[in-house]
């Protein structure tokens, strides 16, 4: 499936791990809840201490996630924009208009995306059908998405923002040559 699918696989793995953990905790707590009750003070004494630790772990994880995200933001910087070839993209109900649809491997492309009518979503899928990048197409605004094509093939652009009755057929093919 290629490198583009790595993110989705990682996301799926994280989700399953956390969801499974939730399931285990809920089952264990439910089973422990049967039988003679402990006085609540005997539960809260160690419980509140555990909660302080838990709070620390959750807060640290959340803070780490925010910090890590700052290094993985999809928003192009000025250097990236300067070295990318600009391709203007205008979204319409219900078709895409691009200044070119043919590219070469290794090319860094600055898709300057806007809309002529309603909000659309520029969703770029690689030849394996994996969603590799996206940006909103907004009327009155130009959003810049920088993508480097690393493999030849036919890439599909689909609309990612509900835009009307032909939202689901609004796609265009981009050809990337070696």
């Amino acid at each position, binding site marked *: 499936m290629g490198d583009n699918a790595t993110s989705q696989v990682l996301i799926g793995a994280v989700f399953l791990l956390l969801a499974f953990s939730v399931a285990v905790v809920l089952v264990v707590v439910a089973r422990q*809840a049967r039988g003679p*009750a402990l006085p609540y003070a005997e539960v809260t004494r160690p419980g509140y201490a555990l909660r302080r630790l838990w709070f620390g772990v959750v807060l640290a994880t*959340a803070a780490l996630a925010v910090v890590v*995200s700052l290094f993985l933001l999809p928003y192009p910087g000025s250097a990236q924009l300067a070295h990318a070839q600009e391709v203007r993209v205008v979204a319409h109900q219900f078709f895409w208009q691009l200044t070119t649809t043919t590219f070469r491997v290794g090319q860094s492309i600055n898709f300057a995306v806007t809309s002529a*009518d309603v909000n659309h979503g520029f969703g770029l899928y690689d030849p394996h059908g994996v969603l590799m990048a996206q940006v*909103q197409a907004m009327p009155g605004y130009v*959003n810049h998405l920088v993508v480097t094509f690393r493999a030849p093939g036919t890439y599909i652009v689909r609309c990612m923002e509900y835009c009307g009755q032909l939202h689901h057929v609004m796609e265009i093919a981009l050809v990337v040559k070696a």
Partner: protein
Amino acid sequence: MSSSIIVPSTAAVPRITAPPNVAETAQARQVRVDRLIFLYLGTAVALFLLMGLAGLTMRAHQAGLLPLDATQFYVILTLHGTGMLAAALLGTMAALWYVVQPTLRLESGPLWLAYFLAIVAVVCVVGSTLIGGFGAGWTMLYPLPFYGWWPAWSTALFLLGNLALSLSFGLFCLVLLLQVIRTYGSLSQALALPVALGRAGGHHGQQGQHAAADPAQRMAIPPPPVLIATVTSLQGLVIVAGGAVIGFGLLGHLVDPAVKLDPLWAKNITYFFGHNIANITLYLALGMLYAILPRYAGRAWQTTRPVALAWLVVLVCVLLAYFHHLYMDFAQPRVLDVAGEGFTYSAVTAALSVTIFGALLLIWRSDFRWTLGSLLLYVGFSGWMVGGIGAAIDAFIPANFRLHNTLWVPGHFHTYFLLGVLPFVFGFLTHLLEGISDHETSRRVRMMIVVPLLVGGYGLVGTWLLGGLMGLPRRYAEQPPGGAALGTVAVAFVALVIVSLLLLLREWWRLAIISRLPAYGRELYDLGFRKVS
């Protein structure tokens, strides 16, 4: 059965003297409130079921099992989203009102008016969609409402319907907030600020004090349901104000197309309103959970300092977390994107550390009384947690780059609703019916209801989450490759959910017959019923 129930001491619940201008007896007032609560809950159930059928229609079409025009699909999508929101609001408003009513002595007049406004909203939305063909989606993202196949009158009617729903919820919040301030003396007291600042209360401190009759001496600490009522009603008023701003903006453009809105500004206000009004149904339900769960655990859930602090965090952070809906609008100022992550994870931290951990602690080694009602509440608890995982992942900007507007989004919010809010509301109704009828559902029937709900529900949302990982876009009437197969699997899981709900309806009917609910109204005036507290 009754002799084995462990009931928390009623001394833990503040008893506040009723305002002197109440003419009727306290029990007669409770009569009216109970019937009104059942009206809210019954309407919520009916809406959930009807909108659920609409959802099944869409999923069946996506599976290739049911032919629909694209416009029909998107009209049903619009109706389904708005109708489900109305159902969730009605159910959770009733649940919170019910649990705080003994403390706050709320008048039922405003609740009747709020119900009437909600019905007007439903009629408007049904009219605009099924008759007018309005299909812009429940979010009505500007300028789409003005670029569709539907006539302008259906746009106006849909907008009016949303405004009516907002007014309904806004009235509920206003009445709740005014009464909670009146009862506790100040907003600061109602928010348990002294507890949050460490000046009052504590883990085993002055919990649940009675409010003094003399307003100058009121030092009561609100119990958690009342604290949550304060937080959610404050949030609700801000949310409704935001909804009014975008609503009137859209109406303005409808009346005069020369009145244009900035698309980015409009998107911000739209998602501020949409994210928050959907989320707040969960928090209203949590207010109910803080009141009801202790009854089954035989322990009190008190307003400790962590609880007070957590709900202050929720007050601010949940409102501002909405920025996470605009990560892919690259024109949005970067600082707001990162702030959206920060606010989202702050709210998640508060929820995980306090409500979730607190609930698990409450239940741990408690000889918890498992009934159908409490089991459904536990299912709702699971849905809130698992839905939260999906949401937290989607709120991580690099992940959102791959998941935004894919099926991951309906995957996580259907986990919140189908497996969170719906079991919370249905569990609450079951709790009431089991209490009034003084009967519990057998273990066998409990399993027959809950197991299909869990398997079917998590299976259904699993098809969306998997679809999201596959990059399948949301809101597609016709599916890209792989989508139809997932849709077929989803329909099979929905069948399980339907089995569960049919058995649950049957069980409600059985409990209602035992409690002679049809004669409820007449009986209550004979003071012959047993109040479910």
